[in-house]
């Protein structure tokens, strides 16, 4: 760059009060290579910008420096102006002589001297600058949604409704997730299945949604706009294309006493089954572990009774590869259990509550099933051990949650509300029963939430006891609950018929393995990490992957749905253009000198660096070098600082630019 223009701004009096801008402009004009310099009252104003454009044309400037405010303020403004004048926008830089100079110093001489220095440094930066072209990446306008709970369903429907194709992958035989298991939902107490099942059907019927249930993610390759995802379709043993969903196989299956996972093990199902009557798809799956045919080779009843001949014992796992441009991760949660944990596990069980051996100590989800009209008791609250109606029910909050001694320090966020809901459901169903709740804090922020909790206390007569339970043991057919009421300052002992534990929300099993496949980060509990806690709560740090629901942290249904729609909006934003354009501040590899030590790859937080083979004309491998995928590179430059031979370089912050600035110190 040999014809640089320097424009010094007064910013009204903001700069000129403490900095002698004329002197700065004059000094700038004397720097070799500066072809033009001037000062002006308001560079960012229309006349100021016109001044800049004119000067570029008149003086044939090939680089522009505006000495004014912080680039965080007006860099875009001036780059646009420079572009309008026919310059590459990246050849326009700003020298910050306001925030970093005139506003923070009062001595006019020293501030002026500093301003001159800043201009001198930045002139060097402009001099060594390069024209950069925005990077474009093609976008495949198909989205993958992992997980078919309410989060995945919402995200999938939103994206599909916007006209883009969606692939939904669900691990279980049916979509619906945890929400399908719930009886009623806070704070309105509407029936969960009533609001959930229509959405499930929508997914199944949507022309833009391809639904893969009983399937898992095998492998993920590619980057934003261009992922290749291998999906594993686990053998269902039932041909989905033939099955009519008549259900005869299930009624005829001789093996019927298998605890039903959907009912938390309290109801029974056959070996060929759909998890629940409203399942989507309504195609059964054979549980091979429990099927007599698979275990001993003798049975085959389901195949015999199936009219369309859909039962297929020979079915194998199959794989498909899907090209997608964006991925929404909505894998949800699981509930903590109080059982004894394997040795060395960071999470501990509750020995003081009997390690889960007392049958009438159940968790919240089991209570949901007991309260659900479609549940194993038909909606009657009956306790598991003897089927009696419990008259004294103790609810305990924060089991696992907020217990760093058990390995979980966080608050599970939903338990306060659902416990309040449980006390109401219980009171509605067992009028002469009494509910007690041991709690530490009632955390009920949310629209209508605190009112809901107060209703449980004031109208539904739940007795809330501020304190925790130290021990529970079976005595006769009662469970003795030893707790304390810290407000009264005494111990409390309750002989309960049933105890319901609000157990912690934990990430799904295998969340870490999926994260590793996706190349996204997760916290020490295996919850997925968002790119920014405040401003990018939906995005992953890995571009093109978005989070929805409890896989990112405990969430209730409204929050989950909001985040799912937000994730869908992010996907749609990405899909709004045919090509993805992004800031060209990315790293490039000098393949001539790269020796392939891949230190850059090791430090890259984005996984943007790949190994590339260089071959000669005969096709023989000459060497392996690093290759930066510009679509993925975040532009931090850690790779360049790490590279011993500096064979990788970050555009916009090249060694040449930086060294030139240091030389000018």
């Amino acid at each position, binding site marked *: 760059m040999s014809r640089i223009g320097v424009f010094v701004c007064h910013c009204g009096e903001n700069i000129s009060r403490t900095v002698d801008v004329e002197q700065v402009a004059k000094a700038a004009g004397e720097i070799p290579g500066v072809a033009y310099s001037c000062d002006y009252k308001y560079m960012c104003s229309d006349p100021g910008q016109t001044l800049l454009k004119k000067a570029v044309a008149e003086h044939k400037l090939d680089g522009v420096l505006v000495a004014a405010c912080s680039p965080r303020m007006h860099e875009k403004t001036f780059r646009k102006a420079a572009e309008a004048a026919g310059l590459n926008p990246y050849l326009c830089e700003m020298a910050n002589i306001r925030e970093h100079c005139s506003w923070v110093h009062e001595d006019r001489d020293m501030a002026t001297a500093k301003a001159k220095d800043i201009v001198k440094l930045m002139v060097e930066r402009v001099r060594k600058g390069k024209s950069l072209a925005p990077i474009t990446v093609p976008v495949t306008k198909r989205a993958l949604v992992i997980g078919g709970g309410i989060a995945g369903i919402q995200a999938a429907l939103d994206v599909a409704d916007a006209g883009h194709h969606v692939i939904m992958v669900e691990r279980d035989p049916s979509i619906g997730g945890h929400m399908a298991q719930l009886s009623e939902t806070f704070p309105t107490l509407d029936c969960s299945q009533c609001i959930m099942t229509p959405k499930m059907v929508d997914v199944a019927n949507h022309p833009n949604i391809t639904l893969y249930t009983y399937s898992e993610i095998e492998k993920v390759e590619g980057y934003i706009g261009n992922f290749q995802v291998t999906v594993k379709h686990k053998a269902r043993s039932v041909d989905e294309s033939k099955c009519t969903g008549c259900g005869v196989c299930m009624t005829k299956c001789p093996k019927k006493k298998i605890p039903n996972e959907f009912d938390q093990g309290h109801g029974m199902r056959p070996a060929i089954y759909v998890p629940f009557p409203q399942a989507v798809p309504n195609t059964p799956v054979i549980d091979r572990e429990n099927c007599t045919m698979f275990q001993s080779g003798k049975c085959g009843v389901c195949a015999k009774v199936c009219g369309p001949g859909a039962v297929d014992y020979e079915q194998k796992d199959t794989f498909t590869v899907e090209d997608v441009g964006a991925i929404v991760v909505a894998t949800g949660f699981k509930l903590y259990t109080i059982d004894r944990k394997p040795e060395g596990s960071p999470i501990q069980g509750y020995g003081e509550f009997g390690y889960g051996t007392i049958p009438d100590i159940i968790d919240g989800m089991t209570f949901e099933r007991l309260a659900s009209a479609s549940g194993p008791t038909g909606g009657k609250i009956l306790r598991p051990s003897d089927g009696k109606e419990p008259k004294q029910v103790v609810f305990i909050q924060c089991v696992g949650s907020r217990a760093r001694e058990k390995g979980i320090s966080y608050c599970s966020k939903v338990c306060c509300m659902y416990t309040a809901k449980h006390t109401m459901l219980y009171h509605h169903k067992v009028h002469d029963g009494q509910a007690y709740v041991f709690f530490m804090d009632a955390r009920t922020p949310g629209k209508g939430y605190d009112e809901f909790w107060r209703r449980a206390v004031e109208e539904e007569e739940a007795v809330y006891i501020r304190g925790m339970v130290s021990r529970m043991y079976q005595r006769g057919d009662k469970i003795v609950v030893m707790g304390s009421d810290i407000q009264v300052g005494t111990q409390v002992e309750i002989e309960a018929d049933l105890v319901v534990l609000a157990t912690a929300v934990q990430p799904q099993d295998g969340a870490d393995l999926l994260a590793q496949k996706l190349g996204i980060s997760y916290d020490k509990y295996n919850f997925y990490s968002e790119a920014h806690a405040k401003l990018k709560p939906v995005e992953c740090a890995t571009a093109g992957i978005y989070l929805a629901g409890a896989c990112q942290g405990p969430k209730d249904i409204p929050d989950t749905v909001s985040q799912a729609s937000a994730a869908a909006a992010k996907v749609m934003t990405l899909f709004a253009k045919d090509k993805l354009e992004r800031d060209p501040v990315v790293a490039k590899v000098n393949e001539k000198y790269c*020796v392939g*030590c891949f230190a850059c790859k090791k430090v890259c937080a984005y996984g943007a660096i790949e190994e590339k083979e260089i071959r000669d004309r005969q096709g023989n491998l000459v060497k392996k070098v690093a290759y930066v995928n510009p679509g993925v590179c975040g532009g931090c430059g850690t790779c360049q600082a790490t590279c011993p*031979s500096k064979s990788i370089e970050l555009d916009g912050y090249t060694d040449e630019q930086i060294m030139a600035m240091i030389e000018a110190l």
Partner: protein
Amino acid sequence: MNAKANKNQVTSIEPAYYQAITEAIRKEAVQILKDETVVGVVGYLPGRRKGTASPALVTTVEEAEKLIFSPACVNNLSVYLTKAKKGVLKQGKVGIVAKGCDMRALAGLMTESQLQREDLFIIGVVCPGVYGFGVERTGTLTEANIARKCRECTVHMPEGSDVAAGTHTELADLTPEEAEEMARIEAMPQAERWAFWKEHFSRCIRCMACRQVCPFCYCEQCLCDKNRPQAVESSPRPAGNMAWHLVRAMHLAGRCGGCAECERVCPMDIPLNLLNRRMAQELKELYDFEAGLTPVEKGPLNEYKENDDQSFIK
């Protein structure tokens, strides 16, 4: 670290010990050349002058029968695979004779994707030490003629090799000269430390022998040879010398295996290994990293922990 129980501490290591290793190396080298496991073996042949040895790539059984191991086998042979005899790996698997410090370099080079373990047949040598420089070469290794780096060697056993020659034997009661020297420098007042290194570096003639002999200086273009921008002045003047040696120490931090070849080949007797050892010591203290005998996924400066020490940061 080796189990103390199994090692044998002696006051001198006699030629017979080296002879036994020589035999073992020859046997193995002949075998793998014969059965075409490898296309060549990098090892040591007797030097022209008596009592010396020089690195060589042998490709025939006849040559392999001349391979030796003696206290004069000072060179780190790993450098031959990435630099001097780089081409040979393209022809097939290569055998290499490796002392503990060579093994470390090989492991480091594997970590850095410069070598693949499956391309190598490593004939490990249980090395009790080699000669220092300017010492009397009697054929017997003693406290008087052992190299400085070998006095504090922790890698006598070449774990991770395909075969190992020799039995674990060490010289007893060696004074840790390098450690003492490091401690002495650390104890100096800051200005004196500066003067110490300034004097040493001012002698540097930038012959680049240190770079040439270093297994880790395998860059095709050294940062210090670049002139756009010129980060390190390339003429042998004090400013550039200081910058060169600091940059080199930084680039080797977390990688250097401590073979001290740089120090051995320095014509100006600059104690270069002290810099490398100081960095190794720091990385051990801060991140519990030690250059080992097996490749790792990432070196200490290519990874991080969220709770790394930051007591020096405000």
